[in-house]
């Protein structure tokens, strides 16, 4: 197996103490941070933001500071710790980061980083606690340390038939200096890792216990809702609140500026409007009613040469025209291998295809909400947020309170998918509370959220392949861009596999706000690339999977270029396993089959779907996924995430779309924004993992992007027609 090297500074990393009432508490730093922020900060003293407690009665408590939005980190990460500690999972209780004000550093769930970053730390912490318990037992029994073994929460000295529970020596262990070198388990010895453990919150979920921010209630709390401009690129100039003020239960109506004008935003400070209107009242429904009566006066387009935003109101038709034009213009070259220009000049045949995709809405099932109680000298919030670290900075600046006086309790999130990395609602709630001097719960309606922005950008990618007279691939060109961001990853496959390669990027400015969305960028480019490779294979009369394997073989044996962001062996591994599993999965009659593979977020994923027709629409009858995410921690939870990624990918590929007219988002709720439903989801799903001993990597995102490609390719297999424009199902009643 590959040995784990942990380069942790143990002095700052681990600290033991006697637990009040007896037992051992081992505090440690769990850097659950976003990779960039954490790596930048590695010299700073680590915050001891997590702990293991071993109580005298044998109970074990683990503290998980990770925000939870459904990826099961609240269960899967403690499993790593429990493994090295060598306790039975049943004796473990997991506590969440509620009321843990002083340790916000690097709390971030996103980018499928949670498991990857936690892996060495949690193992070391667990193993250290175990070693301390063994040392305490060795002292108690006066035997050498290496004669002591552990199993499921007990210590043994086999030679003298002695046994102690962890609880019995926990207090003694607390007196022992934290050991510097501890031995980690070998993969073969894992008992908990690789098994399936149930979501630790499941009892509360199935009985409807309050877990989410929107469930939160505090005495004297008022309800606030916002009214934002209907159109991107316009701002509120005044409000007419005469009708609203007369309505029952309404306390106040005003406008706020969520950010101060000179505030320097960080990457997660995405605020769609400079000013929004706010209505405060006694109950949710009363405020909802009042929202309908508030009249906003809006400015004309606020875009201009200075701020780089368009000086007109944007519409979908114009977006596509602009993208089409951009894709024919020279763009910024990001990578050039060999002589692509000559390859295309001498080509016997050039295949060129353009792929497009619309803006997408996150559609978390829980619309955003936030509780805030801001006082003169401190603030307490209850928030669904993936990145509390970043929003604390923003709050501190806006409220004029020091960071340590701002306490954010992290609620369970009713879905994330990237949206909850952005905390505009958190700031808004705090500003409202500060203004009305009362505790307040800000609730967004579904319509508010669907039309507020922070969408997945709209994208376009043009691929060109140069074939020689023998139908061999001699050149490859990708030119990709988007509104307002490009999805291009120039160093990803098939870069490295083709002698003459050119990658260009472009972008078009927009007033429409965008943000991370489950596997950002990849969620489009994987579909475009995998569709193109499929079509290319078809034109070259090759099996589409064999064609990919051929390219990967080249990339491994004679890689082109300096930097290729993938491991060709592991990439080929998922494709090969997909091939093997597909051979055993009968394709139902009257269906077409499509496959795709992709690498992002450190994990290799391949997807297969079989598509038929039901009610005159394409319908995925069954799906299969293969993933290489290293060691799988919680098998069943990983399968659940994979199943979800497939279904989410199928749904978004077939139906997902936000449209605009004069800056106004046209879809505002599920009555117009189509979501995949039970009868449209595949009844049969198979998930397979490549078995290896590599360190675990992310699960939440990597399978989502190739699923789009598999859907496109299956549609071709079934209909004989290539699908270049998402969503693949035309929406009824709409022109596009």
């Amino acid at each position, binding site marked *: 197996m590959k040995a784990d090297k942990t380069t942790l500074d143990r002095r700052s990393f681990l600290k033991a103490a006697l637990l009040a009432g007896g037992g051992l508490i081992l505090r440690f730093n769990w850097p659950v941070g976003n990779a960039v922020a954490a790596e930048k900060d590695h010299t700073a003293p680590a915050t001891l933001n997590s702990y293991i407690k071993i109580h005298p009665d044998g109970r074990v408590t683990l503290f998980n500071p990770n925000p939870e939005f459904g990826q099961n980190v609240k269960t899967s990460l403690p499993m790593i710790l429990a493994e090295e500690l060598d306790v039975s999972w049943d004796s473990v209780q997991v506590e969440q980061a509620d009321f843990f004000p002083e340790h916000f550093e690097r709390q971030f769930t996103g980018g499928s980083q949670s498991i990857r970053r936690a892996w060495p730390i949690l193992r070391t912490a667990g193993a250290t606690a175990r070693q301390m318990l063994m040392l305490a037992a060795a002292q108690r029994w006066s035997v050498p340390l290496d004669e002591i073994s552990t199993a499921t929460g007990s210590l043994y000295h086999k030679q003298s038939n002695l046994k102690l529970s962890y609880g019995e020596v926990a207090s003694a262990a607390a007196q022992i200096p934290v050991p510097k070198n501890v031995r980690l388990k070998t993969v073969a010895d894992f008992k908990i890792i690789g098994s399936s453990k149930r979501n630790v919150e499941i009892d509360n979920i*199935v009985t*409807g216990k309050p877990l989410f921010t929107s469930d939160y209630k505090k005495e004297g709390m008022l309800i606030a809702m916002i009214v934002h401009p209907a159109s991107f690129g316009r701002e509120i100039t005044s409000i007419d609140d005469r009708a609203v003020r007369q309505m029952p239960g309404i306390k106040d109506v005003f406008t706020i500026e969520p950010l101060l004008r000179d505030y320097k935003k960080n990457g997660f400070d995405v605020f769609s409007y400079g000013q929004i209107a706010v209505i405060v009242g006694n109950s949710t429904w009363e405020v909802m009613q009042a929202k309908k009566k508030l009249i906003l006066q809006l400015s004309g387009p606020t875009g201009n040469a200075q701020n780089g935003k368009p000086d007109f109101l944007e519409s979908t038709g114009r977006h596509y025209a602009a993208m089409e034009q951009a894709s024919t213009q020279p763009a910024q070259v990001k990578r050039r291998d060999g002589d692509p220009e000559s390859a295309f000049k001498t080509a016997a045949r050039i295949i060129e295809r353009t792929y497009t995709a619309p803006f997408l809405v996150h559609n978390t099932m829980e619309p955003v909400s936030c509780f805030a109680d801001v006082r003169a000298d401190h603030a307490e919030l209850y928030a669904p947020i993936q990145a509390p670290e970043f929003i604390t900075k923003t709050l501190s600046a806006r409220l004029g309170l020091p960071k340590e006086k701002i306490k954010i309790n992290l609620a369970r999130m009713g879905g994330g998918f990237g949206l909850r990395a952005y905390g505009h609602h958190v700031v808004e709630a705090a500003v409202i509370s500060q203004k009305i001097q009362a505790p307040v719960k800000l609730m967004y309606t*579904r319509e508010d959220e669907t039309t507020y922005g922070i969408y997945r950008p709209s994208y376009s990618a043009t691929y060109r392949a140069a074939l020689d007279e023998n139908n061999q691939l001699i050149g490859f060109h990708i030119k990709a861009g988007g509104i307002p961001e490009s999805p291009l990853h120039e160093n990803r496959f098939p870069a490295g596999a083709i002698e003459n390669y050119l990658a260009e990027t472009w972008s078009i400015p927009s007033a429409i706000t965008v943000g991370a969305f489950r596997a950002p960028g990849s969620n489009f480019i994987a579909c475009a690339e995998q569709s193109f490779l499929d079509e290319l294979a078809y034109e070259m009369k090759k099996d589409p999977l064999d064609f990919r394997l051929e390219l990967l073989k080249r990339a491994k044996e004679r890689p082109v270029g300096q930097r290729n962001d993938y491991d060709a062996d592991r990439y080929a591994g998922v494709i090969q396993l997909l091939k093997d599993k597909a051979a055993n999965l009968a394709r139902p009659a009257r269906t077409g089959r499509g496959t795709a593979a992709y690498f992002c977020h450190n994990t290799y994923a391949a997807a297969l779907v079989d598509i038929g027709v039901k009610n005159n629409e394409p319908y995925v009858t069954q799906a299969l996924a293969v993933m290489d995410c290293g060691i799988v921690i919680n098998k069943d939870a990983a399968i659940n995430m994979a199943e979800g*990624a497939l279904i989410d990918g199928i749904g978004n590929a077939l139906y997902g779309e936000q449209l605009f007219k004069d800056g106004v988002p046209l879809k505002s709720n599920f009555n117009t924004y189509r*979501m995949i439903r039970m009868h449209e989801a595949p009844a049969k799903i198979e998930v397979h993992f490549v078995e290896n001993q590599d360190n675990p990597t992310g699960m939440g995102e990597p399978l989502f992007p190739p699923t789009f490609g598999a859907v496109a390719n299956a549609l071709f297999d079934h209909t004989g027609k290539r699908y270049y424009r998402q969503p693949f199902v035309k929406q009824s009643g709409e022109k596009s």
Partner: protein
Amino acid sequence: MNSIRINKKEYTVDVDKEMPLLWFLRDYVGLTGAKYGCGVAQCGACVVHLDGEAVRACVTKMKRAIGKEVTTIEGLSENGDHPLQLAWKDVDVPQCGYCHAGQIMSAAVLLRERPTPTDQDIDDAMAGNICRCGTYSRIRKAIHQAAELQKQKG
């Protein structure tokens, strides 16, 4: 008449009768199991039983609910041991968990009326409940499993 029975307890309704049942439950009774997802009967996160039927509380006004019997996820079983709740746990269905109260309440009517549901029955009963996390295949499995449990309990 101004009373309503919720989870076998009587409540007096002293709010605007135009208020949807969902907001009465969440803001006034303090039962937050039924969730707000869309407000327009599209997603099913708010499903509760009104005289045994799986109504969408977000569009069901108090004037309709008064005098009737309401059951929410909190009152589906005494000890969280309805066959669906047990099956949901065993299959480990949820991801984010937000939609599942509504999913379970819809499934409860399905199981009552179709004790051994087919896949088609599940499609027919559950197509009104959206799950963005995509746990549909697990919901299907849990419903089949709950049907078995229900049979064993007799």
